[in-house]
């Protein structure tokens, strides 16, 4: 009986992972295809990478999207960390329910609604001073920060809720003011969450088509907007090459970050155990 179950689970896992990975692998394979017909194999070639690097419009889009994503990730990390800290550590205060609701809603809100509402805000406030009257870089970044800070908040909040509060209390008892406690104690411990929040915000911003289309002015073209308009006209091998570069960059980053964090976590746990052992306390199992 148990073996039947394991067999079933294994089959589903294999099929599920095949479903997740075959499309991506096929894109990578066909990016090295000589033939312009994307699905007929015409021999190995890297010519589509050459075509891609000659396409200045596309490269401009890549550069613009990368800059927006970097600004977005930094902004989202700052505001998201504040929000995560407030929700995890500040207990009850007036407006807490509103804040918690506003933080989780963008996670599920259909993008067309968020995009439309932000555009109407930018248009309505355009006559005011200090508001950019041209939509473009800054409006897309604001829209993306609003979207991605929710993800950062969730990551930071869950890290804080699994973290031992007694460290912060001890520092407080020893006379450190809250701001110092946060900088010296809390921040280093939640650093992995902040790093993964930054990466998450960066990739989400780099990937977003719908909200950017609403928030962008007529002359701004981010990378996803360019991919979308090309794909609408049909499959082109150039996109395969671009996709391969994007997928491999992300894979390297995610795996490196994962390995780094696992190692840090392991050392941290070992140190905590050693410290506990020296203090005469049995390490927690």
């Amino acid at each position, binding site marked *: 009986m148990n073996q039947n179950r394991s067999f079933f689970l294994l089959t589903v896992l294999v099929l599920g*992972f095949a479903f*997740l990975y075959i499309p991506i692998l096929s894109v990578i394979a066909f990016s090295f295809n000589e033939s312009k017909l994307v699905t007929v194999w015409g021999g190995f070639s890297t010519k589509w990478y050459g075509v891609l690097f000659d396409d200045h419009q596309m490269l401009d889009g890549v550069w613009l999207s990368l800059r927006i994503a970097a600004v977005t990730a930094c902004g989202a990390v700052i505001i998201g960390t504040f*929000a995560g800290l407030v929700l995890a550590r*500040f207990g009850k205060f007036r407006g807490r329910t509103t804040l918690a609701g506003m933080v989780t809603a963008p996670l599920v809100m259909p*993008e067309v609604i968020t995009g439309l509402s932000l555009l109407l805000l930018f248009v309505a406030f355009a006559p005011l001073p200090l508001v950019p009257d041209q939509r473009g870089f800054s409006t897309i970044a604001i829209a993306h920060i609003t979207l991605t800070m929710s993800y950062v908040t969730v990551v930071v909040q869950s890290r804080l809720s699994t973290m031992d509060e007694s460290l912060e209390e001890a520092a407080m008892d020893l006379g450190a003011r809250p701001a*110092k406690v946060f*900088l010296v104690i809390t921040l280093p411990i939640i650093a992995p969450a902040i790093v993964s929040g930054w990466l998450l915000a960066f990739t989400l911003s780099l990937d977003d088509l719908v909200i950017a289309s609403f928030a962008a002015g007529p002359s701004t073209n981010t990378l996803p907007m360019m991919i979308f308009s090309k794909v609408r006209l049909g*499959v082109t091998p150039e996109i395969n090459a671009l996709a391969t570069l994007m997928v491999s960059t992300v894979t390297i980053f995610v795996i490196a970050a994962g390995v780094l964090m696992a190692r840090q976590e392991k050392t941290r746990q070992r140190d905590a155990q050693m410290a506990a052992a020296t203090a005469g306390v049995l390490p927690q199992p």
Partner: protein
Amino acid sequence: MAQIRYVPLGHRMSSRMGRFLDTMSHFPPYRWSMDVARRLGVTGRTLVIAVPWIWLMLFFLIPFVIVLKISFADTRLGVPPYTSLVEWGQAGYLQLKLNIGNYLFILKDSLYFEAFLSSVKVATISTIFCLLLGYPMSYGIARASPSWRNTLLLLIILPFWTSFLVRVYAWIGLLRNNGLINNVLMGLGIIDEPIVMMQTDFAMYVGIVYSYLPFMILPLYSNLEKHDNTLLEAAVDLGATPFKAFLRVTLPLSMPGVIAGSMLVFIPAVGEFVIPRLLGGTDSLMIGRVLWDEFFSNRNWPMASAVAIALLLVLVLPIMLFQYFQAKETAGAAHR
């Protein structure tokens, strides 16, 4: 005393910032501004709360009020392309002009109603398929040996990090008439002529299930992973078959994960635009597409706003359900 060999990420930077803060607190302008703030009753705590609160008020809540406002406006030629609701009348009165024509049109015109209906249908069916595939996968990962578990989890998360557009694009290459699937099937002699899959509902469902599967698996996994295995053993000891033990113990315990995952798939899928546009047929009526066309092609901003408000009304219940379970899950994690 154990020697600490390990320097946490950013530790050196943070202790430097701590020292900077100490220096700052002796710096007169800093002290004066803190005094002023204290006298006004503004504490550091309030300031910290204010940062995310004001940002979200400004860029999340107020925009919805503006959408609501514009949904009651009328279109006009010009910039911005909608009329204002409040006008100075001729006698010097403030006149409030509310135009409910957009909403009446949504109710009256069968196009919108059908679009809403088919969006909810597509989202429901996609959610069910995500659940059918995602549940056994999350269960399998949660039951895998710890060394495998992290690798499998990383493999689930990895597609989520890669471009969504690229992944949808990948399916075009597979599903086209001269795409990989048709080529393989014809090469094997199973079919003689290509099966038309692109621009059909089938392609759209495949795209949605494929893109949203990780959203189903992650909350389900984090729920299933917490389960106490001894409960299952107890059930089996008391004579339940493994299948019955699963039905009576695991399934009810995993309901919060099932609901969280389903809502994470269902809610965005209802408003999905990119997948129906790229994979679905030209006649596929999805409300996200209707809103997009109303805004970008027809430039009818008031109508697009009314569609957005109506969509929000349809989704209010699922969103509240999601928030309720999300709050419960995070509270559970905090009490652990």
